[in-house]
């Protein structure tokens, strides 16, 4: 009985979505993106993956879509959490005053969506169960980190983002990174370039159906190959080095991205994650890109990285102080 009700609910949503679509097609033609001089759908310009929709559906939510009021309330709650980072005396406050520096998500464009999660498949809105191999890999990685010593013992133990090697949102897939989730897309006839603002990470996607390089060539951002399927740019990326594992993926990860400009200010961006050695099944998320204004300034992260040197120097100073205190204590006994 309960199951029957749930199914009816889904049917109702599908029907209402269908009705909306019918209403749209009756009143207006579906949007067709303008073409570039080379005749390709124009997805060029400055875009943001900024959103308040979480990757996975919150535990207390069971439906795929909020009502507009519920969506606004969810955004408000998330915005309040962003603002909390400015609480005086907290570590976060010392690190960044997000709101003051225009870094909280509400101060940029963000995609408007009633979705309760970016993940659209599986229908639960959550990543599929992790395989036994994936679980073992996660344990092995944790053990390797522990064996390497304290996080501030040496630069190699610090997070790769702090070291300006690569940031979480660089992709693929393109994921909102909390702030500066901006991209510049430039199209030529044979290639599409995607610049991720953080941290000037460039991906050039050839469109000529060339094969991926041999498995001995593995990269932080993998190697991407693209093609136009109608109005959709499809990009497949393999050859990851596994050192920046997306949500715990292995180096066998394959990311399939689809870019379809379905409104003047929107690219319907979806990505499918295939990694049978990590998840029991592929999974797909819909994370629209919203048009924003350029330009994107140079993000010289490593060149201005005072953080790593200061953190390591601070850790050494702490150790020295502790050793001196211990010596003093021994001496006074």
């Amino acid at each position, binding site marked *: 009985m309960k199951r029957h009700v749930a199914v009816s609910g889904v049917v109702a949503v599908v029907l209402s979505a269908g009705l909306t679509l019918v209403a749209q097609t009756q009143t207006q033609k579906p949007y067709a993106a303008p073409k*570039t001089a080379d*005749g390709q759908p124009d997805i060029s310009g400055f875009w943001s993956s900024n959103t308040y929709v979480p990757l996975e559906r919150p535990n207390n939510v069971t439906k795929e879509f909020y009502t507009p009021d519920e969506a606004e309330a969810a955004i408000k709650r998330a915005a309040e959490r962003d603002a909390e980072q400015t609480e005086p005396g907290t570590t976060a406050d010392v690190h960044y005053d997000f709101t003051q520096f225009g870094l909280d998500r509400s101060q940029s464009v963000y995609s408007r969506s009633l979705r309760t999660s970016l993940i659209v498949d599986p229908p639960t809105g959550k990543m599929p169960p992790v395989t036994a191999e994936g679980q073992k890999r996660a344990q092995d990685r944790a053990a390797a980190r522990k064996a390497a010593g304290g996080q501030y013992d040496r630069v190699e133990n610090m997070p790769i983002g702090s070291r300006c*090697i690569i940031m979480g949102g660089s992709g693929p897939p393109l994921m909102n990174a909390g702030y500066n989730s901006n991209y510049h897309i430039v199209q030529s006839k044979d290639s599409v370039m995607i610049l991720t603002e953080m941290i000037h990470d460039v991906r050039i996607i050839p469109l000529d159906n060339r094969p991926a390089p041999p498995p001995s060539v593995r990269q932080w*951002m993998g190697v991407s190959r693209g093609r136009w399927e109608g109005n959709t740019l499809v990009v497949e990326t393999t050859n990851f080095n596994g050192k920046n594992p997306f949500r715990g993926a292995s180096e066998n990860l394959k990311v399939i991205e689809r870019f379809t400009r379905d409104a003047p200010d929107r690219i319907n961006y979806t990505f499918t994650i295939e990694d049978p050695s990590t998840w029991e099944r592929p999974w797909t998320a819909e994370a629209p890109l919203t048009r924003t204004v350029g330009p994107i300034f140079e993000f*010289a992260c490593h060149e201005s990285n005072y953080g790593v*040197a200061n953190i390591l*120097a601070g850790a050494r100073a702490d150790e020295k102080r502790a050793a001196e205190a211990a010596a003093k204590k021994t001496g006074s006994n």
Partner: protein
Amino acid sequence: MQHRTRLTMVIGGVLAAASMLAAQTQAPAYRAPRTGDGKPNLNGIWQAINSANWDIEAHAAGPSPVREMGGAGLVAPGLGIVEGGALPYKPEALAKKKENYAKRMELDPEVKCYLPGVPRAMYMPYPFQIVQSPKHIMMAFEFAGALRTVYMDNHTPEPADSWMGWSNGHWEGETLVIDTKGFNDLSWFDRAGNFHSEALHVVERITPRSADTLNYEATVEDPNVFTRPWKISLPLYRRVERNAQILEIRCVEFAEDLIYGHLKKPGLK
């Protein structure tokens, strides 16, 4: 008689050389294929073939700055890319250049994986790719993932200083002209310690000279360091192999121990 024949030959040789020179200075006849918007098509992967990254001025071969590298790290010789002889340094700037050279392993930003700046990025021994659109011409460099955005419309002054500068471009017939300012004073021209201040102003002219080569010229102006503007010129060659592509040189991970190693916990190897 013999003497006269020789003289005639010499004169003939001079005349032939002069006529060759005249042919060279005439506008290049080559007309590049066009992009969809009718501009010369610069798309592709390009690379300089010279030793300018060691020293943009003419130089003989030399030993590796790293003893352990031996012949694998030797300084490759080259006739230089600077037109008209020695760089016109102000006296105090020349002293600084010499100091830079003496301390190059410590001071060269390339060693620390910093963004290479302009024009150095154009003749480092790694390829770069041009992705050309009507509004933006991108140059993506293999070394350190450096990037230049050339704005082809909405030209504005630089909003802030940067390593790679702020580039405004326009077409003059077959030639892409790029005006770049807004540099910081931290990048170098080469491994020999040639340097500039934040007053650096670079005007580049990129002209296709055949299907697979470009003429690259840059006028460099920096009144804080040099007594007059000077010019470099070099060809850029297309990487024609079918599978050519820019790969990642995420340089930082290869220089971290060098930069931060002295701050690691004592006793760690």
